[in-house]
């Protein structure tokens, strides 16, 4: 699981994503380089989640395209709120959902797979939780559980939507260590985040987005004061009478 992997990246070519006709992501071009660790930041409603869903193949581009570099097995960590946390399922079975790309609907899980699930639970600090129901976990524990599922899934590109929301300091430190491990193993990680101090500290690259890409590059430059101000103004400039966009698709 820790072997160096063939690098996989994602390239955006003039990508526009819309809800109805309203652009959520507007003419964005750039590259998540293979093995990069990128934070996606921006105000609420800036299109961060939409971008992540498009990268995962869940949102069809209105124009432009997303191209994969190399063999890209992509894993998505959805926002915690998107989950039915009352669903009657045991922790081990959630972790083993990460085996879906390999096992599909019908192939059986081997003893080794079960051990991997147990190791993953232990790695996120949930050792001994195998039979516990998901409904009995706190938000932070649930997030740890979803990280265990990502560990089992063993993807080349990891898309994390607000992985440290509603999570205490100890948990986010533990989970951050896993993100660093993934980066060290040569995986490509893209994370939507709100904590800019954390981004500045831990993430080499940053995409600041407010529908348009405000800045995309080394974190230090992307998070400049001028860029932060521009992002906020873009997000607040919202008009129902907006004209049709004539930029080349």
């Amino acid at each position, binding site marked *: 699981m820790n072997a160096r992997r063939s690098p996989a990246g994602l390239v955006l070519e003039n990508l526009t994503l819309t809800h109805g006709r309203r652009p959520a992501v507007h003419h964005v071009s750039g590259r998540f380089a293979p093995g990069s660790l990128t934070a996606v930041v921006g105000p609420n409603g800036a299109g961060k989640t939409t971008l992540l869903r498009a990268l995962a193949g869940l949102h069809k581009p209105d124009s432009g395209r997303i191209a994969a570099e190399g063999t890209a097995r992509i894993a998505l960590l959805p926002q915690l709120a998107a989950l039915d946390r009352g669903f*009657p399922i045991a922790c081990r079975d959630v972790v083993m959902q990460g085996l*879906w790309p390999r096992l599909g609907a019908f192939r059986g899980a081997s003893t080794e797979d079960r051990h991997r699930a147990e190791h993953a639970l232990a790695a996120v600090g949930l050792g001994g939780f195998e039979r516990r129901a998901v409904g009995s976990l706190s938000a932070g524990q649930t997030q740890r559980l979803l990280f265990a599922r990502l560990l089992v899934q063993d993807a080349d590109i990891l898309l994390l939507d607000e992985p440290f929301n509603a999570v205490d300091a100890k948990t986010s430190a533990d989970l951050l260590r896993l993100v660093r491990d993934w980066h060290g193993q040569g995986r490509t990680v893209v994370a939507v985040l709100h904590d800019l101090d954390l981004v500045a500290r831990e993430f080499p690259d940053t995409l600041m987005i407010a529908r348009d890409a405000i800045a995309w590059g080394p974190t230090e430059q992307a998070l400049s004061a001028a860029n932060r101000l521009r992002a906020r103004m873009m997000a607040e400039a919202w008009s129902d009478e907006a004209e049709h966009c004539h930029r080349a698709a």
Partner: protein
Amino acid sequence: MHDLLIAPFAEFGFLRRALVGCLALSVSAPVLGVFLVLRRMSLTADVLAHGALPGVAVGFLLAGLSAPALWFGGLVAGLLVAVGAGALSRATGGREDATLTALYLVALGAGVALISMGGGGAADLSHILFGNVLGVDDAALLLMAGVATLTLVVLAFAWRPLVLECFDPSFAAAAGARGGAWHLAFQALVVLNVLSAFQALGTLMAVGLMMLPAIAARHWAAEVAGMAYAAVGIALGSSLAGILLSYHADVPTGPAIVLVAGLAWAVSVLAGPVDGLLPRLLRRRHMAG
């Protein structure tokens, strides 16, 4: 004891057929019910059953109480309501539960009116609405067994995608689990099971064997698979006891089976180990850590 439990089945072929049919139904329908409960769609099956009524009524007008005609009419009408409600609510921006409610009220009214207009007396109406063990002829029995078999085979393949889709739809979609396609197959299975139930249970009660055991099962298991087993167990018991009750007390089979399943539900709510009322009263000391 023998007279009470065995003799009716030994004596009457139609009771044996009804029992076998209901047992077949008990193996498949409650499992679908468990997923309906988990997806917060408990009312959907009920709406589908009501929606099937006009089709059943048209079948009755054209061919009398013949199983294939009733069944085919119901299938067409049920699928129309299922697909139509989704499409209509999307097209009009309305809420699907409201559209479903409107459709099934109209369907119920139209169904009863059609049967009366076609010269169906109170006995025919009662047969169609509440079921009649005499209605389970060989054709109906084959149908019920066939639907149960098909359901179990499809569920075996759909189990993981359905669980994945219920629990975490984004992850399911990103992992390529095709939750949407399985959801459609699932809905088709619900319609098939409701219709296979209505010969014995009637259109109004067809959903009873699907939903009541599933709702009761929540109190007996903490995981989906356990709930499915509990629901099937409750349904099997309710079928047997309900048919005996129907025979001895001379009430229609549908209400009899539903009442027994309802009793099982009441017991589950009171005494079930998961969120039951009594276990909560007998408070145990909390653990030290």
